[in-house]
């Protein structure tokens, strides 16, 4: 089709409105590197192979179902888990009574990483970010009174998949439900853990074998069970733009398909049960297009495996609104953000959705905030009439153009990954991680200089920020209760039988036995999560991530913006330079993550941008105890330690670190904290010696400025 006959006239009008400037000057370069013009016409989408299909039909660009939400709306699936199995169980029952159709379980970090609650390494993590599960007894309490033969249960578990799935199956069997009746999904997407969230236990190769073992076990015994949920959500949350999220998620998917085929499975026996999980951020049209592009690309990528069943190349996905986009400042704005993201996810055609609670940038959701989050979806479904039409934006010049751009750009990355030899190899090479981190550092720089607006954070800030909502806090008694129960189980079980089951796991790990099969037996013999994990660790070892960090991305985004922004960086560099001249060395900061929280986007962005500002930045390994972090701070002789906490461990871990430093004579090393810390805890932390606290959304130049204030006061007399 030729250009619209009136197009030239439009250009003239636009130029006039722009007071003589060409409308091309309005073109915006998106984070994905897509040039977004101010007008799209039919000519922009002419001849594109991504345009023109129908919903329910290959390549599924317009959605996997023929009638989409007109036939049946997406599933409202809220993810939750609270401290103890008992509390979570009560919460689930309330939700089920309110008409919720499926359960989605969040586990605490100790469980994710395969540690029992009595392990000293995880003292700050028990019951914090989800429910603590140590044994089949906890699992039975968690699902007490919930009919597992009828209820679809989704579990976010990747590291300790073998003990947790084993205990769930065993708990179901002990309540009279057979394996073939079980229905649900386990996340089981280990590859992305190496990229972003770091809640793995073993190295990549044995972890991939575990994935295959679970697929094999389920295809034989649990035909209704989804064995993997390939997750882009965490990739986005780590800072990836929509093209990176699409490419890396699909590349993970392709790698799992290859692993399953290599272990002897037929493509059509497992591919129809693969499901995806995407994250939806504030780039409204982009993420609508992303879901459409992902479906198109998955269909195309799967053709190389010659599936016979059309469902094998049909991408079905769960979505979640972005947790990272939520702000601590003016937090009720988060309800609006979540609503817009939910619109984006549903206009993009998701199959199920989780909407975040407005208070999640500050603490765990309360009953009240969880209700608002759930109602967000119910209102869209039942009040807006947006569900009446399948793919309502199909045919929009702009959406179709974006869809095509994402397909092309993501395909380039997919090709690059193929050249490296697949996603496992690519992860080893560090390529995906570096791309994500670079994207994250650039985004931070855009926010800090105000070119990406966040209302209440870098624009329209409130004069007096006052938090006026209830905060859910997990009491330390949770840990004590868990430890008591472990003691009781260990003293009442048949020890010889338990040990024999654990040995069987180690043997299976050494050889080719199916790990899930032996884990079910061990769960019944009352072996704990930690014991089952250790039995495999003997053979597999525990994986340690290498932390890479990009440099230069933060400052280059600044200097690309304009001369004024570049001065901000230059001025700051003069300040660190001055510190060097006066004291004999540059300001030196250790950034550390203590506890089992693996979200390292924050510390990486801090490390990379502080270095750009002229700091010497030490980075600690992940999962430190306060003792270990103190040793490193002392050995490297840093001026100050920045502790990042996103998983509610700060009240235990930060004061302990300060204590350890003092005990070893290094009280002069200051400690500052950052991350998701409720303002009501600020005084507690200050009283315990913390020098400064930086909440979510603090611009780097602000936090770095405060750190310099502290250091200059202390060292430049």
């Amino acid at each position, binding site marked *: 089709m030729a250009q619209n006959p009136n197009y030239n006239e439009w250009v003239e009008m636009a130029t006039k409105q722009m007071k003589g400037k060409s409308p091309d000057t309005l073109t915006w370069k998106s984070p994905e590197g897509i040039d977004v013009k101010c007008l799209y016409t039919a000519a922009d989408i002419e001849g594109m192979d991504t345009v023109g299909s129908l919903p329910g039909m290959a390549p599924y660009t317009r959605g996997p179902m023929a009638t989409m939400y007109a036939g049946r709306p997406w599933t409202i699936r809220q993810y939750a888990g609270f401290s103890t199995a008992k509390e979570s169980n009560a919460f689930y029952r309330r939700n089920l009574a309110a008409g919720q159709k499926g359960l989605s379980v969040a586990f605490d970090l100790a469980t994710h990483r395969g540690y029992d609650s009595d392990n000293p390494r995880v003292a700050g993590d028990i019951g914090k970010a989800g429910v603590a599960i140590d044994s089949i007894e906890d699992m039975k309490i968690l699902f007490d009174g919930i009919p597992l033969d009828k209820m679809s249960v989704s579990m976010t578990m990747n590291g300790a998949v073998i003990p947790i799935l084993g205990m769930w199956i065993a708990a179901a069997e002990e309540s009279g439900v057979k394996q073939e009746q079980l229905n649900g999904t386990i996340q089981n997407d280990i590859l992305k853990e190496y990229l972003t969230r770091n809640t793995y236990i073993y190295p990549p190769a044995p972890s991939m074998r575990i994935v295959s073992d679970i697929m094999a076990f389920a295809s034989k015994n649990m035909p209704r069970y989804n064995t993997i949920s390939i997750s882009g959500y965490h990739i986005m949350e780590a800072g990836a733009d929509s093209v990176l999220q699409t490419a890396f998620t699909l590349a993970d998917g392709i790698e799992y398909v290859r692993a399953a085929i290599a272990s002897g499975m037929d493509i059509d026996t497992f591919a129809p049960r693969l499901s995806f999980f995407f994250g939806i951020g504030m780039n409204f049209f982009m993420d609508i297009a992303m879901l459409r592009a992902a479906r198109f690309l998955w269909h195309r990528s799967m053709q190389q495996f010659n599936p016979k069943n059309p469902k094998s190349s049909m991408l079905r996905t769960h979505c979640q609104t972005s947790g990272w986009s939520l702000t601590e400042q003016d937090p009720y704005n988060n309800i609006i953000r979540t609503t817009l993201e939910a619109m984006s996810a549903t206009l993009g055609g998701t199959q199920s959705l989780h909407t975040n609670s407005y208070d999640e940038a500050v603490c765990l959701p309360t009953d009240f905030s969880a209700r608002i989050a759930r109602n967000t979806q119910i209102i869209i479904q039942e009040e807006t009439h947006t569900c009446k039409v399948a793919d309502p934006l199909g045919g929009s010049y702009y959406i179709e153009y974006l869809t095509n751009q994402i397909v092309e750009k993501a395909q380039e990355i997919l090709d690059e990954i193929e050249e490296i030899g697949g996603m496992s190899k690519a992860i080893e090479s560090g390529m995906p991680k570096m791309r994500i981190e670079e994207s994250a550092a650039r985004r931070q720089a855009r926010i800090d200089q105000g070119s990406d607006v966040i209302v209440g954070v870098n624009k329209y800030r409130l004069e007096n920020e006052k938090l006026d909502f209830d905060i859910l806090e997990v009491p330390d008694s949770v840990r004590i209760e868990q430890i008591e129960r472990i003691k009781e189980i260990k003293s009442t079980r048949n020890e010889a039988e338990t040990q024999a089951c654990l040995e069987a796991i180690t043997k299976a790990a050494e050889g080719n036995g199916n790990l899930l099969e032996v884990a079910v037996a061990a769960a019944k013999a009352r072996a704990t999560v930690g014991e089952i994990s250790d039995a495999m660790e003997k053979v597999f070892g525990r994986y340690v*991530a290498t932390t890479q960090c990009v440099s230069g991305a933060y400052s280059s985004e600044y200097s690309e913006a304009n001369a004024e922004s570049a001065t901000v960086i230059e001025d700051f560099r003069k300040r660190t330079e001055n510190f060097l001249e006066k004291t004999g060395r540059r300001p030196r900061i250790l950034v550390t993550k203590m506890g089992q929280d693996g979200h390292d986007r924050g510390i990486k962005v801090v490390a990379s941008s502080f270095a750009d500002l002229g700091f010497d930045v030490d980075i600690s390994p992940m999962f430190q105890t306060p003792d270990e972090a103190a040793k490193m701070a002392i050995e490297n*002789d840093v001026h100050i330690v920045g502790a990042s906490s996103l998983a509610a461990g700060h009240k235990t871990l930060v004061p302990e670190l300060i204590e350890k430093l003092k005990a070893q004579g290094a009280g002069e090393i200051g400690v500052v904290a950052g991350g998701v810390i409720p303002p009501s805890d600020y005084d507690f932390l200050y009283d315990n010696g913390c020098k400064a606290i930086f909440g979510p959304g603090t611009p780097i130049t602000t936090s770095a400025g405060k750190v310099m204030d502290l250091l200059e006061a202390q060292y430049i007399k």
Partner: protein
Amino acid sequence: MYKDPSYFIQGVLDNNRLTLARTITLIESTLQTHQDIARNVISELLPHTGKAVRLGITGVPGAGKSTFIESFGNMLTGRGYRVAVLAIDPSSTRSGGSILGDKTRMEKLAINDMAFIRPSPSGGSLGGVARKTRETMLLCEAAGFDVIIVETVGVGQSETTVASMVDFFMVLQISGAGDELQGIKKGVLEVADAIVVNKADGDNVTRAKLAKKQYETALHLVTPSSPNWSPPVMTCSALEEIGLEEAWETIKQHKKIMSATGELDEKRKDQAMSWMWFLVKEGLENWFYNNEEIKKVLPTITAAVESGKKAPTRAADELVSVLGSDLLF
């Protein structure tokens, strides 16, 4: 900062981790007052140095240096040796800052009580790195560490600088697509006491063996630095902890031979001498640039050379003669 040298001296001799760390900071400081104390501290500690195995490790980014040191260091502490690791990380030339991430790849060694790891930013000049690292090495010896590992990324001249302060210089390589030799500088081959091809694991074993052959051939083309030692090429997998013992045996063997022939003593003496001369040159240079007279005439003379009005030889003569001809002729 503490002013009394005895605080540092006693702390280092007691192997107090905190004081050792602070003494390294003192040595690294760019302030003259700190340097004056540091000189005293080093002089006092000198008699307590010289007993450790000094090991230099270099390799291109991605060769697995940190992973190698993690596995190698833990093996050594397992045998009862105390290990100090000095890692030099490049500073950004634009911001002056640096990212010191070595310990994220040395997770177990970092929390090992028998080990001390200190990453240092390279800062401005290479001379600076050389001085700091050399003296830090002496501190660690005085604190009683048995093996001192100096790690540096293989860029610029840093390898030869590190080679000039250690007993044994190990070059870590990885196998690639058959073009291994392009990635290694001749100057590095000349100072290597061993080449270790890392990541010889999984489907990489064959390629690693091939790379080993290529390095062996290449090494034949350079004259070994000692008549009694031909640098071996080995393969290892730091990840799977294969080949580490062999590497350690090689280092011990090297030390045995070099000690028996007296070359080790010679080497250390030579290193001390060239170090002294390096410092003299550096001192002269500083003296030159800080001379008030020089500061005065330098802009005019350089401008004259730039515009072609004055020959460079003539200009150099004039500049040097400013310092007083009796010094030079």
